[in-house]
């Protein structure tokens, strides 16, 4: 374990060192791609900037709302699709058509329909996040062990108790995996929308403003790193949730 961590750190260190060297020896002009040390200095700079901190809060907030709404839509819908084969068959063509459309391509449409406020980026995040949760939930429902259902039947356990004690717990690890995938996609959509639409608050907006005019690429990269760290933290938190509550599941053990 500690060995793996050590190797990971070595990998990061080498990567940072290459970034530094490429900048220093003039392989790439430093104003286009600043060396690692400049980016780290940029990180310190924006960490002390209240405007940037407000941007981070705006992004994280929009992201949490989007993810929450997506879970609220996709889990019940997935349970429905998973348990009623007729509905699943009826919606398959539509789902297979909508799913491969890159959500980023819908940004202009969302802005026209919803406007430039935060509602647009939240709506897009919801749209993008729904798919992985939906698919994992549908899969989870169909994966409930038939012997467990038969056990419930043999002990005359009613529908509601079967749902609460068997169906939902056995679905949980799959749904959590879906949420982890959705969290990453939703963050991409939030930051992209901020970046392209502008006019609001958010990490993407900060990146857009730093990149134009003066072209502070050190700040652009520093802000991008912050966005990455937000995603990393979310993934770690969701993995911890799995370890804490779903330790019985082989899926959660594998996901760590």
């Amino acid at each position, binding site marked *: 374990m500690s060995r793996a961590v050590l190797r990971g750190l070595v990998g990061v260190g080498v990567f940072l060192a290459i970034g530094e060297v490429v900048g220093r020896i003039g392989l790439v002009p430093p104003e286009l791609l600043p060396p690692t040390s400049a980016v780290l200095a940029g990180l310190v700079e924006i960490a002390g900037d209240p405007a940037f901190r407000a941007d981070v809060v705006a992004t994280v907030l929009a992201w949490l709302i989007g993810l929450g709404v997506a879970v609220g839509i996709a889990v019940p819908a997935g349970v429905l699709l998973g348990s009623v084969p007729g509905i699943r068959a009826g919606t398959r063509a539509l789902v297979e058509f909508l799913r491969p459309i890159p959500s980023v391509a819908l940004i202009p449409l969302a802005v026209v329909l919803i406007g430039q406020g935060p509602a647009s980026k939240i709506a897009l995040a919801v749209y993008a996040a729904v798919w992985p949760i939906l698919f994992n939930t549908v899969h989870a429902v169909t994966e409930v062990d038939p*012997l*467990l259902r038969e056990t419930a*039947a*043999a*002990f005359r356990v009613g529908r509601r108790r079967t749902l609460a004690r068997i169906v939902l*717990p056995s679905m949980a690890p799959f749904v959590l995996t879906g949420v982890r995938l959705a969290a990453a996609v939703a963050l991409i959509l939030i930051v992209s929308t901020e970046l392209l639409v502008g006019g609001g608050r958010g990490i993407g907006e900060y990146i857009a403003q730093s990149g134009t005019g003066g072209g502070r690429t050190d700040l652009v990269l520093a802000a991008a790193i912050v966005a990455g760290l937000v995603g990393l933290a979310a993934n770690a938190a969701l993995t911890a949730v799995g370890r804490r509550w779903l330790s019985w599941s082989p899926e959660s053990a594998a996901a760590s």
Partner: protein
Amino acid sequence: MRGDLVGSMVEVDDVAVAFRDGRSTTTVLDGLSLHVERDEVVCLLGPSGCGKSTLLRCLAGLRAPDRGEVRLRGEPVRGVPDGLGVVFQDYGRSLLPWSTVARNVEFGLAADLDRSTRRARTEEALEAVGLADAAGRRPGQLSGGMQQRVAIARALARRPDLLLMDEPFASVDALTRADLEDLLVRVRREYAMTVVLVTHDIDESIYLADRVVVLSPRPAAVVADLAVGLPRERDQIATRESEVFVHLRAQAAELLRSGLSRSGAHHGHPGVGERGERGPVVGVGDDPGDGVQREHLER
């Protein structure tokens, strides 16, 4: 407790079951009849895949037969009846991995029992299977034998008058298996239950049962109905060495083999006449056996 109730605990009357998979149909049971009396332990002994588990599912009301009828205490079985405890072979899949041992046992109790009764029944059942100390653990933290004890406790907590077991000890090692067999012999006495147990293990069927019903390969038919003339108190070593046990084992083995050769390859089996036990063996067959034999020959 008994006595005042007349009639068989379980009556299986001309039951037929077929599985349809696309165009092909597999007949698993074809006109099988048997009965189990109150307080009896009956083992259904048959080769793997003969349909004995399907028969048990019919008894449990988990599957309706395509033809014929199953009656429990004289009442036709429609859906899962009252007063039933079921133990499946695959304890690893039949327990809730996310729930503690106590919660698993409690899961089997009727929803309308109040909280203190539930707790008392759970504790009592865990005590009976020797797992009182493991109440707070999860199934994944237990050995296979202990997991099957949990499944048995879950069935016992309901205080069933009929316990159905589907190859309950087939997935544990030999020592654990002997332990669990003795556990069953003991709790069966304590709980005054009728037990129907499906197995493909000859020794186990004789060791546990008051009566062994030998089944033929698919479609399962009753080949013979052997009364086990052993005292109810059993002992892993003494019982298995007793003359009655040894004799019954040979008899059951013959019957199983004759069932196999009857339905499958039509070769004679050597050694039948050598033991000089052929007479009683042939005589044991229940009268439905004859019709069954003919059906098999026709196939």
